[in-house]
């Protein structure tokens, strides 16, 4: 496309112009970044490009913005940084995106080729540092390679198991003359993701499921990435199989669906956890048997036969050896399941479904909001869901608030829940919410953040104000790194070693106003609704809502780290 707009005789351009043209060619509309010496040549053609650039206030912010954008839109998020500290500041969002399979491309400047290896000013070995934090990375030495490298990077980031890809560009390469040619056809002999499940395996899986009495579908982020929600819901309904959705897979099937059991794992609900413990066939799709889901793997779903379908062959057998392994894209394989199930009747597993219903009635998620007591964090999530009608993108930080958000929000679609699951990166919420809102400006975007997380990246709200990206951030002020405090209360004799936050010295409303946002505060339960209503009514500026919440509330149910999923602690008073 781009090529046809060029005059027939190739004009000489710089490597910097080539990188921007290549990004345009890939359809990029938005870049999050911060310029600096080595990447500066690329910022000059960006000045003339239709691509919008949002200048973050810290490269970690730029990286998480790109991730939020990717989560919300399904497209590749792009971030840019200079060499040395710019690149090292990107390491956390890259590692985060690798863990959670987020499609991202990061462009970094590098010192000129002749200076590489000499400890030049702002030199860091970006390729080496980011090797284990990316799906792949490229060091470009010839500006003629730029279009092809960029094309490959976008392909790698968005195909197979998605992930972050980094391109490191020395300053002299950006300044050299080159021509912009359309990228060469993809030539990646070592990269051929298997998309379709092996028909024999699919057949075996269907036969195993057809004989099952207590099946469970265990699904996660892979469903979201593969746009497989429809196929999943269809298959679950056809066969009548209940579904648990992991922290990364919330919204894969609607929480309102009668077959949806909600979140399993360390802070999952009793029914979701126990359904997996007691099932006879576990159909795992787009999941990786993470320790936060399985607890002690020796005690996880011991009686179950396991069918594991995933796009990444290395995930199959990594933690649990499946009885039927299937390497495949989640959507394709679920559609294969639909087809292979054919006109078989739904399973006659009413007894199993009744058992699950019984558990749901007996062990629901609960909290106790007293009208004159402190605000319960769970109450805020439920109120926010009620007032927005659930029609919002919800972004969370990492900690107790993240668990409550996942437990108490009702997700009814994919890509409406954005959080850092694998790496558990505090500070994710504010920049990810900004990225999501920048990518989906017509959507309502709420971040639910802990006071500790907020203090890691709140400066990015200056970006939200400056670029008119009106996100709303609800800060749960419990005066603590609540999740750490919870562990200290449960496992370290309540010795609160460095987990309190000195909230007496912080004024979140003033802090918000100081960054060009509206600041609101609620301190009592009856203030929650009007304060959230107020936040909803403002749509021309970012809003920070400080919620002063119960400092002692803990997240339950809980399976202590490394414990057996047979021993779910239901609440503070449940004895064991």
């Amino acid at each position, binding site marked *: 496309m781009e090529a046809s707009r060029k005059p027939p005789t190739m004009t000489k351009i710089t490597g910097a112009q080539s990188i921007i043209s290549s990004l345009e060619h890939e359809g990029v509309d938005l870049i999050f970044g911060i310029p600096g010496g080595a990447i500066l040549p690329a910022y000059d053609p960006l000045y003339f490009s239709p691509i919008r650039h949002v200048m973050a206030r810290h490269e970690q912010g730029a990286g998480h913005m790109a991730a939020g954008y990717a989560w919300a839109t399904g497209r590749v998020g792009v971030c840019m940084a200079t060499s040395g500290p710019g690149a090292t500041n990107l390491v956390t969002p890259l590692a985060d995106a690798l863990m959670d399979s987020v499609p991202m491309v990061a462009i970094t400047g590098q010192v000129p080729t002749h200076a590489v290896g000499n400890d030049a000013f702002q030199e860091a070995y970006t*390729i*080496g540092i980011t*090797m*284990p934090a990316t*799906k*792949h990375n490229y*060091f470009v030495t010839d500006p003629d390679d730029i279009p092809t490298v960029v094309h490959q990077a976008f392909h*790698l980031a968005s195909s197979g198991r998605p992930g972050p890809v980094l391109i490191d560009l020395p300053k002299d390469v950006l300044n050299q003359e080159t021509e912009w040619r359309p990228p060469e056809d993809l030539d*990646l*002999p*070592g*990269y051929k993701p298997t998309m379709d499940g092996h028909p024999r395996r699919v057949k075996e899986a269907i036969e195993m499921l057809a004989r099952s009495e207590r099946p469970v579908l265990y699904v996660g982020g892979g469903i979201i990435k593969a746009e497989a929600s429809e196929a999943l819901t269809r298959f679950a309904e056809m066969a009548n199989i209940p579904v648990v959705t992991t922290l990364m897979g919330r919204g894969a099937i609607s929480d309102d669906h009668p077959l949806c059991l909600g979140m399993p794992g360390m802070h999952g609900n009793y029914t979701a956890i126990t359904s997996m413990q007691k099932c006879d066939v576990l159909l795992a799709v787009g999941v990786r048997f993470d320790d936060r889901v399985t607890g002690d793997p020796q005690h996880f779903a011991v009686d179950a036969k396991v069918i594991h379908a995933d796009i*990444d*062959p*290395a995930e*199959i*057998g*990594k933690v649990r050896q499946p009885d039927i392994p299937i390497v495949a894209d989640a959507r394709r394989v679920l559609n294969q399941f639909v087809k292979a199930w054919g006109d078989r009747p739904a399973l006659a597993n009413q007894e199993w479904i009744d058992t699950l219903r019984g558990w749901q009635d007996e062990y629901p998620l609960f909290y106790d909001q007293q009208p004159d007591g402190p605000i319960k964090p769970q109450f805020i999530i439920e109120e926010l869901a009620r007032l927005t009608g659930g029609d919002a993108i919800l972004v969370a930080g990492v900690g107790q608030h993240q668990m409550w958000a996942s437990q108490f929000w009702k997700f009814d679609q994919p890509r409406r829940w954005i959080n850092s699951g694998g790496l558990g990166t505090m500070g994710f919420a504010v920049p990810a919410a900004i990225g999501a809102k920048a990518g989906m400006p017509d959507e309502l975007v709420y971040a639910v953040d802990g006071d500790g997380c907020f203090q890691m990246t709140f400066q990015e709200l200056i970006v939200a104000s400056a670029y008119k990206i009106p996100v709303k951030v609800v800060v749960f002020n419990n005066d603590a790194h609540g999740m750490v405090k919870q562990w200290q209360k449960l496992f370290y004799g309540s010795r609160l070693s460095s987990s309190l936050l000195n909230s007496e010295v912080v004024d979140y409303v003033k802090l918000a106003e100081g960054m060009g946002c509206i600041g609101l505060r609620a301190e009592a339960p009856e203030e929650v609704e009007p304060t959230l209503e107020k936040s909803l009514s403002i749509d021309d500026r970012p809003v920070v809502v400080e919620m002063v919440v119960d400092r002692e509330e803990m997240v339950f149910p809980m399976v202590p780290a490394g414990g057996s999923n047979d021993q779910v602690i239901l609440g503070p008073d449940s004895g064991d």
Partner: protein
Amino acid sequence: MARVLPLPRHTLSLVVENRPGVLARVSSTLARRGFNIHSLAVGPTIDPGLSRITVVVESEKVEQVKKQLHKLINVVKIFELEPSKAVERETMLIRISAMGTSRTEAIEVANIFKANVVDVGFNTLTFEVTGKPAKLNDLIELLRPFGVVELVKSGRIAIGRAAKSKPSRMRAVG
């Protein structure tokens, strides 16, 4: 210290794209996933675009090792070479102390192993020998009494054994 049982060794043969940093990617993946490298040898192939890495890993989870290495974009193919179905070789340079009559004694031992003298010093002898890893270890044991001054090994290289009879159907081997 607790006695650690030796982990099983596996010889993996990797065909990789001949690009800067590939070796670093391979060794970093093995290190990051907690797999021990026993030896590693790398060199060009007949195709200038490809290199061959022969790596001997110590692991109980060789399938995981292979899958994790396969995730590297520049790794094109991986084979595991079973010792019984492969020719495995290693080259060794070994320098021992040897003066006077002990020189002839050492050379006699070396001859049995088809080891060549490649350097003679005032009070040392240096042999070069190629063979199966076990053979090299035997030679080391026999030369040990002389006093081993220095020892250099190449790392194992290996190639799968070819079919001994004409297969009923000729098939290209991947």
